[in-house]
């Protein structure tokens, strides 16, 4: 029997080491970025514009660009995605068509973002003559996150017990009233998770954004202006060696915003769970 205990000790040791290695890697990456980047974060860095082509000054236009692009993309895709999921989940029965649609959205959810970028560049920027613009970038990003939003919303809706709907119907509510007052509120945690996931993804997206929203570092004055997001700005600074400090500073802002999005998601989830168990 002691041979088995020994082999267990070895196995657990190896597994623990692997876990430690993983955590070390995570720690090193975060530490590397924050150690070099946090000192850069000052009021001026975050809230003023660039001087001397990014070698000095701040990254404010990139922060604005990132927020506008992501919010616009989510703003376009959220209603479309949720309402489509509502229709699929509440108004149709499970059929070949719904299975096909689900398969289709799954496939589209897996398409590499560069292909969306290619599509966006050829279709929005060139064919529709939008040029490199906030709107072209937002539409492209919206199409990228739409399949995921539909999928997660649908799963969230389906996780609401059928009996709740039946109770609502038996009380005389219409289907839409049921959806609005019973199903959607209870599916909100899942939907919000999907939104946060998509928001996080759109913040980090680079290839598709460069080719649709461009890389202009000025404050956008309209939806047809080109914008630069933080990820794009980091990419340009870092790989061209324009300013290592500013690059790390931008990376620090990116990592911190991912952290913020994640924390916000947990906070919202906890709030929903507490509300539901009341």
């Amino acid at each position, binding site marked *: 029997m002691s041979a088995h205990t020994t082999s267990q000790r070895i196995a657990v040791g190896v597994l623990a080491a692997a876990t430690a290695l993983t955590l070390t890697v995570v720690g090193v990456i975060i530490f590397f970025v924050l150690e070099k980047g946090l000192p850069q974060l000052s009021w001026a860095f975050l809230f003023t514009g660039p001087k001397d*082509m990014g070698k000095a000054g701040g990254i404010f236009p990139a922060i604005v660009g990132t927020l506008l692009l992501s919010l616009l993309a989510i*703003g376009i895709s*959220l*209603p479309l995605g*949720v*309402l489509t999921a509502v229709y699929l989940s509440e108004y149709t029965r499970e059929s070949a068509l719904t299975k096909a649609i689900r398969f289709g959205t799954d496939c589209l959810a897996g398409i590499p973002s560069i292909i969306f970028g290619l599509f966006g560049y050829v279709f929005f*920027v*060139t064919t529709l*003559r939008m*040029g*490199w613009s906030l*709107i072209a970038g937002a539409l492209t990003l919206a199409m990228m996150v739409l399949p995921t939003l539909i999928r997660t919303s649908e799963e969230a809706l389906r996780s609401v017990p059928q009996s709740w709907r039946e109770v609502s119907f038996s009380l005389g509510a219409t289907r839409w009233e049921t959806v*609005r007052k019973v199903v*959607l509120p209870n599916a*909100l945690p899942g939907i919000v998770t999907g939104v946060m996931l998509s928001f996080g993804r759109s913040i980090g997206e680079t290839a598709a954004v460069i080719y649709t929203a*461009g*890389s*202009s*570092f*000025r404050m956008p*004055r*309209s*939806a*047809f*202006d*080109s914008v630069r997001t933080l990820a794009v700005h980091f990419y340009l600074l870092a*790989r*061209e*060696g*324009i300013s290592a400090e500013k690059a790390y500073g931008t990376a620090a802002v990116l990592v911190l915003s991912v952290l913020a999005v994640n924390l916000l998601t947990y906070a919202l989830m906890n709030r929903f769970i507490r509300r539901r168990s009341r």
Partner: protein
Amino acid sequence: MILLFPKGRAGRLHAPTWVLLASVISMIGSACAGRAGAVTLAGSTAFQPFAEKLAEEYNSAHPEVNVTVQGGGSALGISAALNGAAQIGMADLVELPADAASLKATIVARDGIAVVVNPVNKVSSLSMVQLKEIYAGNIRDWKDVGGLSGPITVVSRESGSGTRSSFETILGKFDLTRDAIIQDSNGTIRETVANDVRSIGYLSYGLVNQKIKAITVDGVACTTELLLSGKYRLVRPIYFLTLGASTPAVKGFIDYVLGPAGQASIVADGLLPAT
């Protein structure tokens, strides 16, 4: 939550929905108005930093015009000028390709192509023939050209790059070795060569800094005087390409770039003037 249920109690839209609609409409409205004063440049990554600086200067002097600059390489500049994504295509090419025939080409600057190696590399000079053989993949080791033994890491640009087209045209058409590392802008080439002691690359003369070392080609160093006198042969013009009649905003910017202030700005950072 409110956006999900735009219809409030009596079927009327909630206030936040009105606000959203209003802002979207005003954004689109201002967009259409703003288009007239928009000048987008796209293309050559060699000229991009200079174009951005010129845009910055022009924008502060003329706030009603919005000049923005994108990169992407000379071929993208030609393509964008042709399909309208950009009002001005930037191309740094020794000879413009056939598909640029319908575009009006204005030379705004000239630029030398510096051949660079890592500062610790012993090699400081190469002949045009050696350069071509290295880039074609026939010379593979530094010891064959006077350096310490070690494989040469050839760094080049993507095929749409004006710098690359010009480089290959001047050296005499050849097929780039398949082993070449490809980077997508002048700046990235600089960083790659700065980091790899065995690498060789080429980039815009205006972008050379202490991180890399420019070598002499056929005994001629890459300096402003030798570029101007024509002794250094790796030179190419930088074109602004426009399609059809330009809007006043575009003309204004091009005039600025060709004027004394613009040319002074260009020369100050290491490029050659247009004439």
